[in-house]
């Protein structure tokens, strides 16, 4: 594999950049693999990469129905953070933050990680108290957190509405300075390129149509491009989890819902951090191109449509304009939707299943993108060692039955609880 560097860039300039190696190959499926990962999104690609890198398992295939990076890793709002209160989420996400910081070097691919900080706005004294509590919990887990008062918030985001007579005045906020954003597509491509280099087969345009299970053990999968034998199979299919679960006769604590996002026309630099509205569900950041990247609530009903309806978008942007009135002057450039695997407690599942050799990675709700490296790392460990790592031990499938829910915000499938 050609290393991406200034020297290779200059060298290839002499041949008009026509002689670069392909970033990844297009292999035909082999008859058998040690591990088959279903789903060529961020999590699936990261899992394959860490299987090869950390566990030396390279007889691996990624099976993707469409093209890699075409699902939620290409549809998110690129926010990376670990500002969680509960230990399970905090420690898992902070482990991921460390992988994010090293990712561009590790993958030899510029993922444009930009730790610009995230601010959760507070709109009441009670909310400030709750944020102080969450901030303290974060710091106990080694995560950076700063409680900001109104004046401090005003210094960072003067364009927000700080007038006195608004419905939701800004009292202050909780900031995680090390949080930020990254170039989402580069994350998928960087993982794909390295995984391919280490021997992983990335098989695109290949739909899984069934599973071969006998005596409670996975034997392989049936696909639109033939049967593939596999010792182990990992599911990383986000919004399609329920569809594959049905083929396995499993019913999961997951519902598939639609989440929209949008960007405005590009404008000059105005916002250098990620900001969330505290009296609803709205978040905004500014991309390197100058677009305001915005998102918020689910559409609110089960959906596989990958496209949204306007009432939710209107509701979300109403919150945005309440928070930053200048947004009302901007034209909308694009809106889009993705289908989310919403778990019932709002926290993910990375676990073994009752079928030997079948592993499950799902339930990412609103926060799948930032979890990409940590999810891949822990899922690779779970598959390779056939046991969960302590970082994903809390993300068990049976926690709903045993009552060990991780109700970080109580934001699962139902939007109106928020």
């Amino acid at each position: 594999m050609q290393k991406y560097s200034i020297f290779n860039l200059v060298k290839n300039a002499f041949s008009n950049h026509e002689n670069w190696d392909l970033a990844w190959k297009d292999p035909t499926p082999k008859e058998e693999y040690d591990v088959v990962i279903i789903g060529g999104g961020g999590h699936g690609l990261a899992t394959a990469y860490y299987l090869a890198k950390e566990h030396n398992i390279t007889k691996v295939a990624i099976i993707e129905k469409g093209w890699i990076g075409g699902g939620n890793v290409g549809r998110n709002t690129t926010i990376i953070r670990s500002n969680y209160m509960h230990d399970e989420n905090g420690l898992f996400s902070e482990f991921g933050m460390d992988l994010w910081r090293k990712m561009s070097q590790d993958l030899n691919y510029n993922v444009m990680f930009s730790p610009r900080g995230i601010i959760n706005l507070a709109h009441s004294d009670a909310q400030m108290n709750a944020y102080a509590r969450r901030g303290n919990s974060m710091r106990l887990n080694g995560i950076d957190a700063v409680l900001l008062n109104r004046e401090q918030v005003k210094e960072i985001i003067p364009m927000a509405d700080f007038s006195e007579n608004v419905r939701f005045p800004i009292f202050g906020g909780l900031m995680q300075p090390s949080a930020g954003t990254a170039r989402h597509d580069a994350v998928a491509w960087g993982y794909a390129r390295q995984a391919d280099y280490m021997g992983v087969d990335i098989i695109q345009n290949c739909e899984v149509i069934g599973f071969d299970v006998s005596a409670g053990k996975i034997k392989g999968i049936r696909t639109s491009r033939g049967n593939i034998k596999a010792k182990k199979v990992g599911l990383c299919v986000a919004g399609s989890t329920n569809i594959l679960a049905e083929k396995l006769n499993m019913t999961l604590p997951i519902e598939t819902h639609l989440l929209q996002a949008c960007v405005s026309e590009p404008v000059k630099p105005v916002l250098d951090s990620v900001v969330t509205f505290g009296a609803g569900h709205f978040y905004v950041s500014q991309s390197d191109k100058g677009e305001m990247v915005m998102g918020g609530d689910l559409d609110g009903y089960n959906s596989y449509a990958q496209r949204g309806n306007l009432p939710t978008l209107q509701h979300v942007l109403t919150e945005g304009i309440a928070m930053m009135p200048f947004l009302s002057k901007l034209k909308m450039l694009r809106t889009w939707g993705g289908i989310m695997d919403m778990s019932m407690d709002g926290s993910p599942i990375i676990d073994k299943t009752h079928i030997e050799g079948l592993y499950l990675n799902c339930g990412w709700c609103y926060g799948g993108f930032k979890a990409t490296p940590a999810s891949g790392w822990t899922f690779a460990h779970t598959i390779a060692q056939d046991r969960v790592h302590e970082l994903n031990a809390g993300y068990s499938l049976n926690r709903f039955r045993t009552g060990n829910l991780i109700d970080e915000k109580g934001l699962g499938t139902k939007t109106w609880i928020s």
Partner: protein
Amino acid sequence: MLYINCPHCGMRSQNEFSYGGDASVKRPELNKEVSDQEWDDFVYNRKSLRGKHLELWQHISGCRQWIKVERDTATHEIFRTFKADEEVA
């Protein structure tokens, strides 16, 4: 925008409704031993079908009745609506 034909009020926009999830889920019967698995299935586990899906909605800004809606989760097409206690064939 979805338009839902409320069996009590007629055709209204989705803004008047609130979603209540899978209508095929049955609460375990009272006065009998209920296993953890049965509670788990009732409270948490969902099929979340792609295609025709029978679901509950509440006409929260209208007659406030709960209704059943048969909707396609891939196309958003609404086929039929029922009163909450109506049996769906």
